[in-house]
């Protein structure tokens, strides 16, 4: 390798380093200027909680339906949904509905029990709408005497 080429390469490398340093210094200057300006305009800029975050968060629409599910309660969007939401999620969450899979007779018994002991109001003609919604969308599943193991997440067992 010729000495001249080597010194040329060294010079190019030095130039690259210098220009990098220039960029870093310029960036640091711009950043500190921005901090100064921010502090002059709003003295608590870096110490205050960003209260505007509240307004930027996704709002909860009480009636929003996504992929056939009522987002606020997790209930299936079907005939009778809002009657169920308005009558059955005041004291307990909708999770108590979706966990339970019962026949119309047993839902009617459960409603009667809630009216007699848990301060549930008279449902009138809404009762049929509610029970129909529940038995249609959350029907009992046959489980037999013992189910097979399902929903297994397989993983390699390390020593």
């Amino acid at each position, binding site marked *: 390798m010729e000495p001249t080429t080597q010194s040329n390469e060294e010079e190019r490398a030095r130039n690259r380093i210098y220009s990098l340093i220039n960029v870093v210094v310029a960036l640091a200057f711009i950043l500190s200027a921005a901090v100064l300006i921010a502090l002059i305009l709003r003295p608590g800029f870096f110490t205050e909680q960003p209260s505007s975050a*509240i307004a930027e968060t996704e*709002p909860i629409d009480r009636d929003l339906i996504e992929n056939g599910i009522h987002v606020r309660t997790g209930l299936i969007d079907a005939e009778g949904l809002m009657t169920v939401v308005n009558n059955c999620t005041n004291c307990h969450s909708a999770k108590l509905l979706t966990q*339970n899979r*019962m026949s119309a007779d047993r839902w009617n018994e459960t409603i009667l029990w809630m009216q007699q002991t848990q301060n549930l109001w008279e449902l009138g003609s809404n009762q049929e709408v509610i029970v129909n919604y529940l038995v249609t969308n959350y029907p*009992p599943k046959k489980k037999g005497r*013992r189910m097979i193991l399902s929903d297994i997440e397989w993983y390699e067992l390390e020593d």
Partner: protein
Amino acid sequence: MGYFALLLGTDIVFGEHMSADYLPLGLQAPDPFELYNKNKEMVLLNDRPLNMEAQAHLLDDDITPESKMFIRNNGLVPENIKPLTWTLTIDGESVRKKKTYTLEELKSKFKHHTYQLTLECGGNGRSEFDPPAKGNQWTIGAVHCAEWTGVRLRDVLEDAGVKNDAVYIGYHAIDEHLSHDPDKEPISRGCPMSKAFQDETLLAFQMNGKDIPLAHGFPLRLVAGGWPASVSGKWINRISIRNKVHDGTKMKGSAYRVPCEPVAPGKKVKDENMCIIESMPVKSLITYPKTGAMLSKGKSLKIRGHAWAGESEVTKMEYSIDFGATWKSCRLSEPANRLAWQHFDAEIRFPKSGYYEIWAKATDAEGTAQPMVLPGWNPKGYLNNACHRIAVKIK
């Protein structure tokens, strides 16, 4: 907007940009996992009332930490508890003299005792019943064994004086009914005097060496190991010594009661033919490995877990890898004290590659073992102690 500001106790900056039907974060239901220090792998069954269970592999510790303990609530978790002014009153038909103690008096007047006590929800395993049983659909994780410190219920009851006609005790607590009706108690259960007078039945003020966490009954909890955990009332402020079986909320009907005589699945049972659950049945859990483990052929697998038997003790622990056709023994520890769960382990060798299930079966001192299929159906799906199963693949 002004209404929200009032509720939050602060102005909402940039509130004019907020959509009208948006509920500020500070007013939404808080995350129960954060609020009650729960492991993220716990399973939330219901957020109102709050009900949360563990998975088998989370229960691997000998003494269950707060983060992995199930929560079963009937009402709302109380707020603004003031331990300094907290009192416990002993009353009822069969108390000699109604008496009230401050928390400090309880702690200073009576001797302290510490026990590891197994508490299992009566409905643990409910999700497997067919036809389905009403209530929270617990799978296997509504059980824990923590270390409780407190005074003996017996010492306090005797200090107040127990009449000869005493039959039962019933607890009362400060939690609020879901309907916010102040005249309703979410739950008020109890136990016969014989259980109330056991050495291990505590009025506890500490769990695992610290103040009891709020969700588990701060500042005072009745702890009656080996019985449905609903006997172990949380946030207790009154205990009634009754001259009859306690008739509080969830002592009647199908609540914590099973048919006195076995019935066919789905049968309607009259109230007078239902009997109160006392001791929980013999049961066990494989807590290591987590179900779904894959290992290579030729490697042995070490399993471990816990076994308990209500009022009794586990005397034999076995596992099967051939769907119950043959059983092999596990090593089994003595309980730390009566009513504490016991630990087991075993080393398994698999004859060839393929899909296996490991089944665990405990047998109690009376010779009663866990069933392989579901035990007797009952209207509310209590007492499912069918053997625990995990899946394993050998490659």
